[in-house]
């Protein structure tokens, strides 16, 4: 072997050695070292939003170090890590991935854990299967009707009616006065009213929501048809422009803050925009579909913390400590200050005045519903209903066709 070849071979060996060593170091990164446990935590929120919790937890638990990670494409990244046997110890379970995470056995059953004691029933139901709870969700969100008080006052009304017929009558009145009564974002945010109506229907029937995703033949389109029929009165009676199929949530905000529309559907995440706009605004519950029905809202528990089913021993204990910490008073106050509507029993979030009514009547009581939370293949359902809703509003398909098409999509995906 010439010197050149020998040198190249040596270099190759050194490089390979360095690679193997670094890979070995990666493999050991989440193991205990020097009595300290390293817990890998993969979050839905970015580092900026999670930093305070991680720092405080490490301060309270000096024997545990958090190896934090997050991604803008959270669901796909977590999926890749799980399939590649690189599961984080603690991660987020959400409506998009909960069915797959539970059915593939990636998440630990948390039903009897002490930290689950104060979690509200609606939040538990969100991540349950066969009476077992797989995640800890501490807050929820609910959408409602954001209204311009000054525009409503012009037609002698000071609040949003509590029934759908009353709401339609108000829209007529506003339209007659030359005011655009209501807009919704059918380009990217369909189903706010429809989900609220459907939640009310299911509550009246006393349906067990956790069973919906287990039904062999799933018919979300047909199931929601009554709710859609009531909602379509907005368009059938010519109260709202069909151009909403091209409107996004951002478009709605621009219209509302510019004082060009009296009412829109939105939620707490946009309250800061309304506050800054100077518009005299209020936030109301979504009207009940019929007299005698409860006023449900489109809403959902927030994504929950889950523990990997693959960990045990000191790591599992550390993970349980972390979840206990995430529902501690300090942590809940931090979440509340950050704008989350906390639903843990015994804790009250300090929400803005406009949100108080919806927080008390919908969020804390669990009177909210999100269709995609309770059917398998939520992403398929979400995409299908959005496209079919747009066609329904355009008038290119009938309500029966809408239902058939949505059900067919779900059947194909199962």
């Amino acid at each position, binding site marked *: 072997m010439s010197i050149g070849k020998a040198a190249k071979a040596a270099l190759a060996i050194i490089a390979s050695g360095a690679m193997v060593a670094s890979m070995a170091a990666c493999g050991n990164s989440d193991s205990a070292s020097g009595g300290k446990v390293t817990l890998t935590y993969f979050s839905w929120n970015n580092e900026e939003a999670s930093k305070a919790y991680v720092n405080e937890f490490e301060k309270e638990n000096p024997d545990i170090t958090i190896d934090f990670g997050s991604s803008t494409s959270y669901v*796909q990244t977590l*999926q890749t890590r*799980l*399939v590649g046997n690189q599961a984080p110890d603690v991660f987020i379970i959400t409506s998009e991935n909960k069915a*797959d*995470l539970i059915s*593939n056995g*990636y998440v630990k059953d948390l039903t009897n854990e002490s930290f689950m004691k104060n979690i509200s029933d609606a939040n538990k139901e969100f991540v349950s299967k066969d009476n077992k709870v797989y995640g800890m969700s501490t807050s929820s969100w609910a959408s409602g009707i954001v209204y311009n008080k000054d525009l409503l006052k012009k037609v002698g009304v000071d609040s949003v009616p509590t029934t759908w017929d009353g709401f339609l009558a108000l829209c007529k009145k506003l339209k007659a006065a030359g005011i655009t009564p209501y807009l919704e974002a059918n*380009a*990217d945010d369909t189903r706010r009213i429809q989900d609220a109506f459907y939640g009310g229907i299911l509550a009246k029937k006393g349906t067990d929501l956790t069973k919906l995703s287990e039904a062999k033949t799933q018919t979300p389109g047909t199931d929601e048809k009554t709710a859609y029929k009531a909602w379509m009165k907005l368009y059938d009676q010519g109260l709202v422009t*069909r*151009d*909403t*199929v*091209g*409107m*996004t949530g951002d*478009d709605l905000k*621009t*219209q509302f803050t*510019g004082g*060009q529309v009296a009412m829109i559907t939105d939620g707490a995440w946009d309250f800061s925009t309304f506050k800054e706009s100077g518009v005299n605004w209020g936030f109301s519950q979504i009207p009940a579909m019929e007299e005698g029905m409860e006023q449900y809202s489109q809403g959902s528990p927030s994504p929950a913390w889950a523990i990997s089913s693959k960990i045990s021993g000191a790591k599992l204990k550390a993970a349980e400590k972390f979840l206990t910490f995430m529902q501690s008073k300090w942590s809940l106050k931090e979440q509340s200050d950050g704008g989350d509507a906390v639903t843990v029993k015994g804790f009250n979030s300090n929400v803005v005045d406009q949100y108080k009514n919806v927080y008390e009547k919908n969020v804390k009581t669990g009177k909210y519903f999100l269709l995609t939370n309770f059917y398998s*293949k939520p*992403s*398929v359902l979400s*995409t299908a209903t*959005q*496209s*079919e809703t*747009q*066609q329904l509003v*355009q008038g*290119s398909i009938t309500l029966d066709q809408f239902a058939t*098409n949505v059900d067919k*999509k779900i059947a*194909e*995906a199962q």
Partner: protein
Amino acid sequence: MMTHVMSAVTRIKGRSETSDPTPGTVDEKSLYKKRKRRQGLRDDLTSFWFLLPILAVFVILFAVPLVQTLIYSFTDFNGYSMNMHYVGWVNYQKVFTDSSTLQGLIFTVIYAVLQTIFITVIAIPLAVTLNGKFFGRNFARSMFFFFSVPSMAILGLVWRYIFSPMKTGLVNSFLGLFGIDSLPWLSNSHLAQGCVIFVAVWAQIGWHATLYLAFLQSIPHDLYEQATVDGASKRQQFVHITLPQLVPGIVTSTFLLMNGGLKVYDLPFTLTKGGPGYSTYTVTQSIIQQGIGQSQYGVGSALAVLFTLATAVVVFAQMGVANSISRRFQ
């Protein structure tokens, strides 16, 4: 010094005399062939080492995923469990019976064909104009080229505001100045399709005009001078000199446009999200949505395999037609 050079020449001469004999007898001929083959192998090996990096990139980033996609297309792989099962042609059947995918395929083909035609028809005269002499020529060239600099995704978001169907949308506000009613740009299926194609054409004309400009500048000027002396009009010069000379440029440009058009994703997604309904839905959006977004890797993979084959057929057919046209003008 001279001695060194002479001896080197002698060495080379001597080597060439012994290593490269003029083939005469049968033995010499076979020896010659063997040496030639060995030399060829040595050359091939050298080329191989040069090609190895790009070959490795091709295998790792293209061939392996392609084979994986082919395998997944016959399984029920859901992205969460490697415990997948062979399902035969089920995923392929789903592709052909899914109405949204078929609608996506129709719009993708319309988009690819129309953008190719419009851009080619507009970019060539534009390039001819930009090739002429006028005040501010360099500025005009830069301006048209810069349209293509921002990513299509960003352009989609910007044009979303311009084509907003509300009265406050930029185009509708402008129409309002003349008392014209607002138009449902992005909320009417046909108008939305038109908007997507319009933005694609607007954004890519400059780049393709620049491509044609490069080809125009390589046309010998004396051809035009002779044509002028012969009394040919500007139109005749364009038809009989410029266009035939631009054929290689047209082949390149249309190939890029068709290929890019069939794979389009970013512009329709940011401008209309594939809506209203499925009117601006594309095949690539369907592959990404079904495969990754909805964890139906089997169906997404089957669609990707079929689309790769369809794209290959279209592109090879286009290359065949373009080559035959090229030969006619040679």
